[in-house]
């Protein structure tokens, strides 16, 4: 008997738990002929900001051990063009997949403005708030690492936006569970964990940073242990709080077992990011491997596995 992969989350039904992560699948059209996102649980779009952005000087990407660094600088077409030119195509081609629009601002007001602008658009299933872009700062720490800012952004959006709100957090904090608590109290309907971790590579030949902006965000399998730990911690805290808020697991997922690590740690949904660059078919393969694994292990409903690692471990 084939396992049920359908997941209920955010008051929506996802045909499977595998989404593609923001910034790693564009607007869905680039890979569509190769890997239609309509087969997936959903598409999370590249972060959209109020104004179009050119992004940072090159080089913007570089390989590291089992990972990569990026300093894209939120290059995107801007809210207006996104709504006019990109969103309609996505909605039309979504099929059974959910459309999650990821966005950011450079101030609390901008966050709320962009969120409100998106809230009125047809076809968006949920909004993901990018609180963790390592290239945007608020004083000396990152914008999204400051609990007060996170509270303000989420509470402000909650007041303006009826759509399900997913807070995507940065792992670059001492206590991610505390940050998650703040986001949930402020009204987030789900938490996406994790965004990239600040990193740097030095080009030894040139004796300077390999990236044009020096710092970049680390992603890929190297990051997976950090992501799994964050999901596990936050899931536990949410259980303690009695909050039924779901967690979305992100970071270094390239195979079915990788996704299962997150699901067992407490994620209801997962997102595949960097792996799509290595193999554009990766997200579809994760779905297939999850299905095969469940069948093999006699799991009737994948959702049964969410958080199961908390009962065996400690």
């Amino acid at each position: 008997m084939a396992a049920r992969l359908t997941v209920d989350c955010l008051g929506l039904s996802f045909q499977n738990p595998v989404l593609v992560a923001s910034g790693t699948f564009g607007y869905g059209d680039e890979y569509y002929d190769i890997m239609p996102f309509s087969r997936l649980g959903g598409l999370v779009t590249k972060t959209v900001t109020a104004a179009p952005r050119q992004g940072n000087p090159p080089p913007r990407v570089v390989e590291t051990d089992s990972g990569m660094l990026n300093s894209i600088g939120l290059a995107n077409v801007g809210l207006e063009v996104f709504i006019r030119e990109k969103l309609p195509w996505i909605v039309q081609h979504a099929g059974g997949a959910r459309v999650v629009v990821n966005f950011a601002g450079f101030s609390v007001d901008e966050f709320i403005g962009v969120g409100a602008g998106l809230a009125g658009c047809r076809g968006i299933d949920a909004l993901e708030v990018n609180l963790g872009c390592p290239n945007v700062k608020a004083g000396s720490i990152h914008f999204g690492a400051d609990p007060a800012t996170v509270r303000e952004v989420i509470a402000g959006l909650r007041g303006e936006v009826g759509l399900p709100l997913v807070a995507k957090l940065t792992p670059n904090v001492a206590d991610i569970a505390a940050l998650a608590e703040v986001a949930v109290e402020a009204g987030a309907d789900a938490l996406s964990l994790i965004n990239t971790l600040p990193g740097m590579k030095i080009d030894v030949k040139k004796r300077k940073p390999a990236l044009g902006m020096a710092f970049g965000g680390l992603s890929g399998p190297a990051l997976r242990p950090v992501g799994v730990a964050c999901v596990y911690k936050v899931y536990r805290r949410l259980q303690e709080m009695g909050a039924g808020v779901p967690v979305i697991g992100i970071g270094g997922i390239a195979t079915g077992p990788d996704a299962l690590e997150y699901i067992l740690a407490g994620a209801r949904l997962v997102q595949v990011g960097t792996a799509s660059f290595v193999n554009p078919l990766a997200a579809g393969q994760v779905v297939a491997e999850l299905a095969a694994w469940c069948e093999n292990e006699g799991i009737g409903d994948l959702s049964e596995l969410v958080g199961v690692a908390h009962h065996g471990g400690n």
Partner: protein
Amino acid sequence: MIPVFRWVEVSDIRKMARSTYELSFPEPESASKIGPGQFCMVSPAPHTSDVFLPRPFSYYRVDGPGTIRILFRTFGRATRWMAGLAPGSRIGVFGPLGNTFTLAPQARRAILVAGGIGLPPMAMLAGRLDALDEPPEIDLIYGEQAGDRIVDVGSDLPGRVRLHLCSEDGAAGQKGLVTGLFRPLIAGCDSPPAVYCCGPGPMMAALAGLVSSENTALFEVSTEENMACGKGICKGCVIPMTTPDGSVSYRYCCTDGPVFNGFEVKWPHA
């Protein structure tokens, strides 16, 4: 045409010059539709290497019924891994990607300038230009730093293509830089030729200093930037362009390029 990602088995690998290898693999469907300038992303099969991201390589030759050849030089982790491949090794190939050189310029003459491992797209372009119904006269200038790095490209080029070799150490071809060979060639043209170029940034910048809209009908270059996706998604591979107002304008090497109008590229970008 729509790019395809597939796992293929290496059909052949051979050393062509110092640090330089030719890698062949099957590409059943698309081979005949690949244009000069296009590239593919090569990634290792899982667990066979510690290379993580795929790397871009220009197509070098497209043989008969669907064999692709690329030519590469060892620099770092990925190309050293590739040098150790053997017939039968599995690799991932994603392609064809990117745009192509303009094939039918209104020019009776074409000068192709290849610096180092910039050779592959220039060699393929020479063949395609020569196969046009009304082919231009074709000169291919090809230079290396060291003579022992020169690949014997001549035997594979159409007979009409004039090959001009140089090396900085003088160990093969004329001693000197490609720009040294280029100057007399362009000076000797009756009408403005089409100029195509692929090579290291400083070399292309130097060449850009020798051409103008007066002495050249067309100036196209193939650019390079670090890539992750090869498909316009990661927004990683920007090439700065000149703008009338001097502001910064980026285009994407993988989808807007790798071939750009050389007059528009902001030199040196590397």
